[in-house]
């Protein structure tokens, strides 16, 4: 082997090596392409059955009808998404009332007040909230929260109700708000805080008057993500909210403004878009029937809404981020 030192082959790129390199590169690229294919497959799967559905049920009826009864046995089927949207909105808004303020305050505490020791304990504990399986949350809502609320605050509450499901959805989404908001708040440079203190501001004023406005794009994007998560949440509502598509009775206030009594919606059972899908899937799954296709139409609605919200959250986080 000594004579090979005269003209060393530094490259050592034989045909075999090049082939091997190409093969591995190609394999990795193929695996990466699977993620892209997943998106395409989701869209194609949802679209193909949704199109079949809309050829049977006019899209205007789907969007405006207020009654949902996908009776698989045939007879008297109506597919109106309005009642489901109201159910989803109920859950989402109530959950937002829990998750957004609590999550924001948590983020402020973690980023501004907590010692590094407290932070290192609190953050993993908060992550646990997001790691508990949702069916377990649903069980908690049904078996512990509802009886507790019934015994104390709302005796007229029904076994399946929107309130306890929404509370659990809210608790589950707290870490989403808090972790993304806290990242945004931690990214605010210390100079700004020092400048605030220099002007004689208190810690409270610095936190609420400087840090929060400076990180508002991150906070807003965390809100949108959390709401999008709440919209897509399935098992908590399936277990705890029951499955009754209901239109709330719309009363009229003095000035003729339509008004819905929140207790009417919250204390009774209801149905969200996700519950409607699970209900159909839990029955007989035979392809080609209208209820089967309706499931995909609902899925498409859900997919589009959550996708739009995620893109929106990205845009807000990117475009309105304050650069320091």
């Amino acid at each position, binding site marked *: 082997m000594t004579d090979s030192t005269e003209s060393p082959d530094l490259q050592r790129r034989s045909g075999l090596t090049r082939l091997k390199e190409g093969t591995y590169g190609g394999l990795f690229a193929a695996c990466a392409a699977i993620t892209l294919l997943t998106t395409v*497959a989701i869209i194609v799967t949802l679209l193909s059955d949704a199109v079949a559905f809309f050829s049977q049920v006019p899209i205007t009826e789907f969007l405006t009808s207020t009654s949902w009864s996908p009776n698989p046995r045939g007879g008297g089927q109506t597919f109106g998404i309005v009642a489901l949207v109201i159910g989803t909105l109920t859950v989402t808004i109530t959950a937002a009332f829990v998750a957004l303020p609590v999550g924001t305050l948590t983020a402020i505490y973690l980023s501004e007040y907590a010692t590094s020791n407290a932070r290192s304990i609190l953050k993993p504990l908060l992550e646990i909230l997001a790691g508990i399986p949702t069916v377990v949350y649903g069980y908690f809502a049904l078996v512990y929260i509802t009886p507790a609320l019934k015994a104390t605050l709302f005796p007229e509450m029904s076994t399946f109700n929107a309130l306890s499901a929404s509370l659990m959805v809210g608790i589950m989404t707290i870490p989403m708000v808090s972790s993304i908001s806290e990242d945004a708040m931690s990214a605010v440079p210390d100079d700004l805080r020092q400048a605030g203190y220099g002007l004689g501001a208190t*810690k409270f004023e610095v936190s609420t008057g400087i840090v929060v406005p400076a990180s508002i794009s991150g906070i807003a994007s965390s809100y949108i993500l959390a709401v999008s998560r709440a919209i897509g949440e399935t098992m908590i509502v*399936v277990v705890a909210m029951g499955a009754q598509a209901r239109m709330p009775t719309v009363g009229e206030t003095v000035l003729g403004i339509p008004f819905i009594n929140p207790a009417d919606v919250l204390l009774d059972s209801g149905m969200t878009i996700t519950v409607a899908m699970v209900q159909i899937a839990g029955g007989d799954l035979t392809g080609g029937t209208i209820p089967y296709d309706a499931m995909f139409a609902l899925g498409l609605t859900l*997919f589009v809404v959550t996708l739009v919200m995620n893109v929106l959250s990205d845009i807000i986080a990117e475009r309105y981020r304050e650069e320091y």
Partner: protein
Amino acid sequence: MATDTDTARIEGFGEVSRVRGIVFEYLSLGASVLGIFALAVLLIYVTIDAFDLAGTSPVWLLTYFVTLVVPFLAFCLYSARDREVTRRAVTVSGGGLVAVAAVFTAIETFVGQIPRLNWQLAYLFVVVAPLTGYLVYVGARGRPGAVGFGLVGRLIGGTAIGLAFSVLFLVFDERLWFLAYTIGIVPAALVYGYGRVRDVSVASAAAIPIAVLGVLVAVLLRPVVDVYPTTVFIYLWTLAIPIAAAGALLVNGRGNRTAALVAGGVPLALAVVIGLFGRAAGLGVGGPNALLVISVAGVPTAVYLHRVFDVGEGVTGLGVPVLLVGGALVGAFVVETFGIPTPNPWVSETFLTEAPSRNARDAGLYPAIVGSVIIIAMVAVFSFVLGVATSVFLEEYTADSGVIGALTRLLQINIANLAAVPSVVYGLLGLGLFANLLGFGFGTAVTVSLTLSLLILPITIISAQEAIRSVPDDLRRGSDAMGATRWQTTKNVVLPEAFPGILTGTILALGRAIGETAPLIMVGAATTVFSAPSSLFSKFSAMPMQIYAWANFPQEEFRYGVVAAGVITLLIILIGMNGTAILLRNRAERGT
């Protein structure tokens, strides 16, 4: 004349409201712990229900507290060797007892009865449980504690993995595995080993083709050959012996041949004896699964013991399993002798080994556990391979600019969006694509695990990317400078460095997969199956599906008993997985 203004005369200047700030600070602290507190209360209640602690006599609790908990805590304190910690622990446990009892009595007299909770249980959950957690944490930093917990961890983890293996063989054909192992893997390993020892690069390179060829031949031979050894011998030949050999090699690498023989041989011999003769000798355990579990748990334990004795520090820690088992036995003996009433927990042997039933006391989770184990094993393989390959492509094989750069950004955005798609939509994908279009069937293991793999793929990829990104660039440049190709750099430098991080991310993602329910319902997984599945294409259930099914039962025994037991089982498995992941991460961080 702004300068003339006397600052002291401006209303409120220099007066800062402290109250507002303090209120806000405590408000935000309260918000931070609100969710955690709510979850803790719910978990306490579900634990009480699952173990039937509400009706437990305080004497029973006291007995086990004295025989089991106190010695264990004492060991932790001994390991910590810190007067300050000991003082604190004694203060907290003593003061906590008084405080909890006082607060509890006050609530009961002035507010009202708290359902299914007494002050003894409250003390247990509010004081003893966090204290134990803290002391384990502190104790593990001392040498005996680290040794003891390491040993317990290996025993429990090894048993769990052994059981998981035996569950996998319910579905996967052990005879096919036997053929594939004998014809494919053993020759390939021999060739590879020869190549390594004699430094023949051709032999090393030939190993993979030989293995593939052998497995193919095995698949072809399987329908033809129909004489096989019994399951015990298949497990012995294909699993127990290689594991023991690997353990022995590991110990041998540290220099001692006799120790190597002992470390490999003793667990193997124990496994063989109990596996072959356990039942006959009336031990109550035996058969192929016992052989599997003992060898999978025993060999790593033996290797660990060797290392501990080799280092010679903290050997006292090896008494921890004895302490725990002994404490439990003494407790049981005392309870038996004095006729103390024992609780009747819902999480019991019956619950873990029986099929679901209409009768609450007979109901079990066994088929669902089997389903979950098989699904998770398959998801682990799919998502690990795909996740690592994709993240390697995105981090190592792409450029920042040009067409490839644009493609990479597209992939990156796409992955971020996929991570936020609701899981129920993935269920529809599985239903439309895998179950209907590709014909894998409704609710079969294949359909379910492919669906779940796609669901957790974005999370796996994102965490694997982070792990790969955290490998210092100097290492890559060093490897490049040695003339390594991109693949060689990736294989020899990047992946070994990033491996612990990738593994941690994958296990955490698997934790998400094991609790997912909605996609399973969508692809038509069974809510209840009465026997363990026997093939990959039979109808499957999983733990969350069974919990979902039971939660619909209106009877009290199901609501507050069986489902609670199911939830606790699921959560314990989840905690085990996530705990392993965190330990791996911590160890990797300490190593670098």
